[in-house]
Structures are given as C-alpha cells and as structure tokens.
C-alpha cells in the first residue's frame, strides 16, 4: 500500500495513528482457529481485528472467563459481559487460568508491557522501585501461551528488566526452558510504537524486523540501550487496509485513534454529564428540591 520508490502510480495521503499501525500488525499473528487469550486496549483490538478479518474462527478468551464473546464495543475489563451479545461459554478466572492457560491450550497470548528487555522479559510492576501496576493476568499467559505477542505502546526498552513480572526468554538461549517453562512457548513478536521485533532462534535475543512508516532504523536504535541487531531483510511495517481502519475506528475509536483522542472524548463526556447536573441545580435553586419520581 505504501509508495514504492520509482513507482509511477498516483499517490494520495491518508491519516492514521501509531495505534492503528501497531494493532493491525499484532493482529496478523493470529491464524484461523487459534485460541487467543486477550486483554484490553491494544490486545483486545488486535484480537477482534483478526476475528472480524482474516481469522473468523479464532476463539477469543478473556481472563474473567468469557469464552468467544461477540462484543458490540470493546470490553473494558476482563469480565465485561455488558459489552457482548453473547459468548460460547462463561466460566471463572480459575478455570480460565487452569484448564485453558496452564493446561497449554492457548495458541496466542497478548500482553502489554511497560518495560521490556533484550530477551523479551516484561516488567509491569516496579519502575525505579516505584510500583506501577502488577502482573494482572500476564505472568501465566506469558508463561504458558504457545505464541506471545507483546505490545509496547508507552513503555521503554531496557537491557535487563530490574523486575521480571512476566518471563520472556530470561537470560536467552534455553534458559526459559531450563527454568521449567513448557517447550514450544514464548514471545514471538514485540510491537512497539516505532517498530516490530522478533527473537533470534538460538540466542533468543530481540532483533528488529520492521520499522513503522515515518520512522528510521537509526531512530529505533537510539532508544534501545543495547546494540540492537537488525534483520538484513528489514522492511517497513505494512499499513492497515481501508477495511481494517474502518473496523477499528467504528468499533474501538478510543483505542484506534490514540490516547489523546480518548482523553478528549472522555472529557467531553464528563462535561456533558456535569452540565446536566449544573442546569438542574440552577433550575431547582430557590425552591425545595423536587424528586422526579412520577
């Protein structure tokens, strides 16, 4: 879709967000019929983009126990049934984590990180000793999913995480498996706001696979504190198609269009809500409050 050098084709400009580039790229890791463990935000949008597009038979699971929901809008938390038209199964968090995650039935697990290191270990707990969030469901999903997809939207890269909330490849090579994690599991890609990274088959060190439109390899290397290896076939991350953009913006505008847009929308929403209270207060001032119960 992006312009090729020397192409004589007519071109035009379209507007997209980094979030859209990231979510679309991450969604491509899902194959049809995969069992996908999702979260909220980017992971959720990536999962549903796949389900509504190239992987209609994938089964999406949330931590709270909703299996295969058909949501009208994005789920706001792991057991937000209020957003769905139904699900194939509803159970609880312990069953989700035992009979589906620990028993090894998750094909793709989506994670979002605050800090990630060279070997794909994730920290979502303590940054500089300060508590940030915690594991949530990530530790076990990262531990047991066959293919883990990590989204780093507002996070950073570290040579070594000071605190490992979710194990990636630990110290590289086979250290993950020596620690007892099941064979055939582990992170496959990391999608950051600037590029896409994979892990070397043997050393398990992260390397750059592609750079997003408008970003250079040098720019990416600058924000990575170790000597980042770059694939000899490095390419530009593909852009979302028009259908993908349409779905993302209509279904999940507050994820698709970025954090600033989300904050503006929420601010407007709150203002409308407060304005109503203000006008009622003025209307009722001077006379005793009337309950509208009739």
């Amino acid at each position, binding site marked *: 879709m992006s312009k090729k050098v020397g192409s004589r084709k007519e071109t*035009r400009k379209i507007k997209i967000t980094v979030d859209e580039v990231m979510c679309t790229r991450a969604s491509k890791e899902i194959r049809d019929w995969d069992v996908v463990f999702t979260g909220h935000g980017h992971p959720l949008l990536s999962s549903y983009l796949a389900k509504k597009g190239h992987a209609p038979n994938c089964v999406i699971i949330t931590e709270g126990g909703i299996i295969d929901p058909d949501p009208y809008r994005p789920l706001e938390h792991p057991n937000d049934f209020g957003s769905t038209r139904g699900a194939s199964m509803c159970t609880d968090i312990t069953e989700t984590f035992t009979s589906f995650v620990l028993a090894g039935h998750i094909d793709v697990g989506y994670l979002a990180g605050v800090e990630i290191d060279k070997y794909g270990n994730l920290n979502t707990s303590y940054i500089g000793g300060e508590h940030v969030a915690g594991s949530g469901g990530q530790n076990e999903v990262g531990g047991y999913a066959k293919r883990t997809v990590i989204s780093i939207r507002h996070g950073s890269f570290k040579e070594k995480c000071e605190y490992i909330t979710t194990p990636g490849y630990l110290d590289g090579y086979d250290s993950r498996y020596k620690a007892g994690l099941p064979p055939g599991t582990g992170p496959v890609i990391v999608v950051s706001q600037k590029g896409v990274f994979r892990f070397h088959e043997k050393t398990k060190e992260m390397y750059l696979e592609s750079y997003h439109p408008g970003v250079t390899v040098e720019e990416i290397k600058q924000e990575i504190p170790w000597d980042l290896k770059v694939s000899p076939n490095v390419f530009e991350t593909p852009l979302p198609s028009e259908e993908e953009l349409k779905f993302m913006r209509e279904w999940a505008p507050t994820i698709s269009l970025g954090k600033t847009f989300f904050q503006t929308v929420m601010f407007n929403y709150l203002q409308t809500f407060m304005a109503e209270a203000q006008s009622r207060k003025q209307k009722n001032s001077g006379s005793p409050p009337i309950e509208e119960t009739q």
Partner: protein
Amino acid sequence: MVESEAEDKVMPMEEAVKKFVQDGCFLGIASVGEPTPVSAIHEVARQKKRNLTVIQAGSSMEIEILIGTGCTKRFISSYVYRVRSGERAYDRGIRKYNVEVEDYTNYTVAAMLMAGAMGLTCFPAPISLVASSIFTKRSFLGENKIKVIDDPFKPGQKLALIPAFKPDVSVVHVQRIDKYGNAQMWGPLANMKWGSLAAKNIIVSAEEIVEHDIVKRSPNTTIIPGFRTSAVVIEPWGGHPTGLTGYYEVDYPFGMTYVTSSLSEETYNEWINEWVYGVTDRSQYIQHYIEKYGHKALERLKVQYCPSAPVNLGATYKSYLEEFGITKEMMEEAPEFFEVEVDNE
C-alpha cells in the same frame, strides 16, 4: 488447530471411536453413575478395543461392559455398583483378562482428573486416604499411587499428594452441543466437566445439535468449549438406560435385565450379543428396544417439561460512537494522526 479438524467434528460414534480410541490407550469415562456415555462405551466394546487403561469416578454397568468384554487391562477405580448376591461379569472379567485395579475414592479420582485438566502435576489428597488401606494396598501405580511429604506450610503436618491424570481420550454424554463442539449440560455435573477436560481428546455425544446462537444465549451452561472437543456425536438416547436431566429417566426394568444377565457367563454373553454386538449403532439399539418392548416402554421414560427461569444476558447494546457521541468530524481531527502516502487505487 488445523482447519479441517475443526470443520469435521460432527461424526458418527463409530468414526469417533475409531479415530480417537486406540488399543492400549488411556480412556476416561466422564460420568459418575449417570448420565453415562453408554453409546460410546458400547461402541468401544463393539470395536473390540484391547488393553485399555480406564479411569472413572463411580462406575456401574459401563465399566462392567469394558471389563466383561475384555477391553480393559488396567482400571483406576473408586466404586463399582454391584448387586449383593453372586459373581458378576465384572468379577469374571477381572480374572479372565488379568485386569489390574487401583483403588481410590470417588472424590480423589475426580480430583486427579481435575488436576490433569488444570495442567497440574499432582493434587493434595485427604489424609483419610493415608490412614486407610487404600494407601497401603497398591497395584500397578505402585509408589506413584499416593505420596506423603512434610507440609511446607504447616510445620509438623503431613501432606498427601495424588498424581494428576490426563487420559488420551474421554467420553461424555450431554444434552446439547453446537457444530463447533461447545457442549452444554445442566442438572448435576458430577465429574462430567473435569473428567472431560482432563483428556487430550474429548468425544462428546449429545441428545441434540443446536445452532451456535442457542449456545450463545446460555453461555453459563457450556461445560466444554468447542476448541477442546475432538468429536461431536449426535446421539439421541445416548445415555440410555441411565437418565439425563430434561430428557429421560433411568430405565430401571431394562437395567434389571442387564444386571440379572450379568450373573452367569451364558446369559451375559446373550445380553451383550443382543444389545452391543447385535446392533451397529445407537439408532439400531433404540429400534431394537422399540421392537422388543414397544414404544410405550420408551415413552414412559420421557421427563415432564420444566423449563428454567429465563435470565437477562442483555448488554446496553451501544457502540462507542453512540455512547460517547463521537462524530465523524471529531474522528477526522484526532490529534495523533499522521499522514502517510499510499497508492491511489
């Protein structure tokens, strides 16, 4: 999961058993008394599977058939229903085929399967087992039957552990299912859920196949999600002569014909020849039942209609565009937009 696997899940019992129950495999029966996947058990016997290791919490005629017809080599048992007087096909089968039996309790067999389903390696066992001869008398599991360690959290106390089991295949009979294999069951669940989920492959037979939307309208009733189901078998009366909530009662008089036949080898073989080997599948079995005992005999088993109260699964059914009043103009002005050049196609 491979696409073809997922799309070809609906199959006859004969095919399901041929595909997923191999000689020498580990078979789980996900049932405690009733509803029992009787049609699957009959098919396993009909296909003369051999050297099976069978696990079940609370057994009745199903294990007797698998032992009496020589399918079973090893049996992880907790209870076998038997009439008081006389030697049964179960006892003759144990001797004739040198079946090894490892004894546990209903709860611990269910718990070991649950632990298998949960992806654990073992599960804590009640100390009452250790205080009993269940602990000392050991068969083929030997030292791996129950182990006792010092409880790491309670100094001075003992902790008993039993192994988690993951059968190669389990069989279960439920009320309804969709083509994806989302299996729904209501009424008592006994060991049907965890006994099924423990296995690598699950053969689910169901009274009815329903549209996916019907499943979605009562998601709390699903006990096995489609992606865990290997075979979907549509099998009306699949649990007969055991009962199934909302469908049919236990067939006591018919069950008695079986129980009585089991007392001698000759009458047992006659019963098996008539009801297992003598029919090709469950529909022939039911046909034979009707021919022999009449429609009324089957009709009398049908339960009365007693629907559950509807619950509201409704959401607000609003998109974010509607909920937050997001307009096209607002979206076009999203502050984080950047421009990229694309081919004009």
